[in-house]
């Protein structure tokens, strides 16, 4: 793409994504979601609504669960971001992936990366959640396929396995 006049207004922003320091040139108000997907090629983070309702674009920012469609990239400067690609590369978290696979927690798969990050975040806070705590904890992530029951089962299963190992 040719350089548009807007390119001059871009800033150099350094952040850590999946344990790697990265430098991106972006407008201050560019969405973290777009920077991840378009600049860094991390397309596992999905856009569902673009207004922070569906949670498909959930990532971890300094350990907090955020909707990356609502985060201006400047706000992410200097932070540590974890996306589904970062989680997938990390052996310790296999329990969650396996459980989603075995329990039917993923159907069409579009909400799944965000849902798994939300589940990961929940388990970090509450290693042994009840079904109700899971339902409440994941209620910021919308899924249209599953009716959530098998997602809740998957998180319970992952919690059991994480405790066992």
């Amino acid at each position: 793409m040719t350089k548009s006049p807007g390119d001059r207004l871009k800033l150099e922003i350094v952040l850590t994504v999946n344990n790697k320091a990265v430098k991106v040139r972006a407008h201050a108000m560019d969405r973290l979601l777009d920077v991840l997907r378009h600049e860094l090629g991390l397309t596992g983070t999905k856009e569902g609504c673009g207004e922070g309702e569906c949670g498909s674009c959930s990532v971890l920012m300094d350990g907090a669960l955020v909707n990356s469609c609502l985060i201006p990239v400047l706000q992410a400067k200097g932070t540590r971001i974890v996306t589904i690609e970062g989680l997938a590369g990390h052996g310790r978290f296999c329990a969650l992936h396996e459980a989603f696979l075995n329990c039917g927690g993923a159907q069409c798969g579009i909400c799944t990366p965000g849902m798994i990050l939300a589940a990961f975040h929940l388990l970090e806070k509450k290693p042994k959640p009840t079904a109700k705590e899971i339902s409440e904890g994941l209620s910021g992530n919308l899924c249209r396929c599953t009716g959530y029951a098998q997602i809740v089962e998957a998180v319970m299963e992952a919690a059991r396995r994480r405790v066992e190992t």
Partner: protein
Amino acid sequence: MRKANFPKSSSVESTSGNMIGMKNDRIVGTSVPRREGRDKVTGQARYVDDMVLPGMLYGATVRSRIPRGKIKKVKFGPGIHWKEFVIVSAKDIPGKNCIALIEDDQPCLADGIVNHPEEPILLLAHPDRHLLPKAVEAVSIEYDPLPAIFTMEESETLRERIWGSDNTFKQILIEKGDVESVWPKADYVVEGEYRTGAQEQLYIENNGMIAAFDSEKGLTAWGSLQCPFYVHRALMKLCDLPAEKTRVVQMETGGAFGGKEEYPSMIAAHAALLAIKSGKPVKIIYDRMEDMAATTKRHPSRTRHRTAVSKDGKILGGEIEFTLDGGAYATLSSVVLSRGAIHAGGPYYWPHVRIRARAVATNAPPHGAFRGFGAPQSLFALERHMDRIAEVVQLSPVEIRRRNFLQPGQTTTTGQTASEPIDLGKLLDRALELSDYETKKKRFVAENQRANCKKGIGIASFLHGAGFTGAGERYLGSVVGVEGCEDGRVRVLVSSSEFGQGTKTVLCQIAAEALGLRYEDVDIAQPDTQEVPNSGPTVASRTVMIVGKLVQSAAIGIRQTLAASGLLGNSYSPEQFRAACRDYVAKHGRFRSLARYEQPESIVWDEEKYRGSAYAAFAWAVYVAAVTVDMTTCGVSVDDFVALQEVGKVLHPVLAKGQIVGGIAQAIGFALYEKVFWENGRMLNGQMTNYIMPTSADLPPIRVYFEEMGNVHGAFGAKGIGELPIDGPAPAIINAVGDALGVSFDAIPLLPEDIFDALEKHAGTACATSSLRRGQ
């Protein structure tokens, strides 16, 4: 490559195909891992928006802002470097300006006239996607507005004729017996009118397409879609291209629910026109608001019942008038209407019935396919009406249903003999027991007296026909392939798409089972019109039953080829099979076995009279919902949900349960949350912020039970399952709300404000009545 064997599906019914399944259910019936599941849970699955082609432009759509009018002038406003943009109008269309479907009445781009808000008029493309929204805004269109109509009732008055001569896309008349003969014999005549609203499919992945054009190779479209060959056909007609120069590839699809049945043809058409004009690949991805406002939704409906009933609660006969709002163009309304009309009589015996169904035009974006396809609308009406009949006859909701269930040997409203050995009374008993219905019912009556949160329990019994209606499957004539490959593995070739239901998983299970292989020995091709035969659209709960049976049949053809060549004996291990397949391919090249659908002779359908076998098989269900209504907020919460169904053989328990729970969740939204607010034919609340679907915190425990009866029409005894669960929950829940409050409701979605209004009114009448009594 050679084509080996063309086993007919009808002949397989009597050959070894079923026997393998019966003797040796190793894979079918178990919950193997979802085929593409690993990619999905690790974020590696590739959806259309994840794909970038070199030199790719981004496309956007300029849409009508009025419901109906003539386009006077198009002006390109200041502040935009228009020369940098590719601009496409109706004049740029190489072939016919239509989105080919049933009727070719819907233009790809408006040419001189618009018939609904959001109708596409112009297309823009640019390398920088950030510039597109401003450019779309900067196009101003002058119109000569024409009077528009927005309701079914306005359409029926013919005040304005907006489609054809009578605003009618399709009329259907189903007649059985002589309904006029029943009125004099009736002890009661029960009337009711029931309505359902538009519902957005709300797949989490918005619609999107990429198209690329090369004058040598032709046109390719990659996208989020259900029906590759629908898109293929639409592109051929629009671009005037031959089949071999038109290619459609399905990308991983993030939910569909019918919402990606017909509209993807429109988006592919738009991307194609921009790609042809620019010579560059073009990506169009809708944002949520555009997707919700412009693409299809469930048809709003109105159903009127007039039923003759005897004093012992038997239905003697009735008239049903079923009307759908189709929006501005015909699209799929005629077939949605057909399914809705056929399901309007539900799982009951009607000695005499007349069903008049009609899909009418309004100046709203066309309504379209959505899981259930007309049946959730007519079944909501019927199952509410059954409770009304019960009230009039003073029988319980349970008893009124029990006395009218269709029995084996009796005929449906279309005259189809119920041939399956289904015992609906037993199904009902089991559902009552599982839900602890009688105890709860009594307890709620006692407790509701004083409570500020009133509880109620409701039931719905219903059915859903699997596969295309009537002669539809015969016309489709689906073809499925199974291929033997170099490494000795086999590959399933179908256009049936995966969008969450588990198509790939179950079809691989079926092929593995039919061949005595392991699940891992079978692959399945990504739907690509250049690579797979046309196994029909992925709709109508037809994939497992119809396509699955053909996969089973084609797989057997592979085995027969290997056996005939002397490479494979009667019994073999998976390793021996792979060795035989490898040897065969080394000698003769890759080989394919194709199976084509042939309708069993027992399925006879008269499209003119709407008589005969509407569906090869039905799935049956009884659902029970328990609810609480908070009298302070008027909010309804579903506390418990029991879903008992008979869907034939369950091929994959985890996926099957996922279909049922997911369908029920969507139906809870349909009943209680999801309201489209309209203004002059345009959706006002096209955001997830103000169009509310259930979250994980909103849903009750959903308890799923299967009864399994074999079915000769499906692979290893399976029937369709995907749509059934969206038919019953809404009436069960609204019946439960009626039970809790003693006030019944006949329209959905039922929001707290509707309940508040009804209670106010009821209190008003109650006061008036009581004062009257006092006065007496």
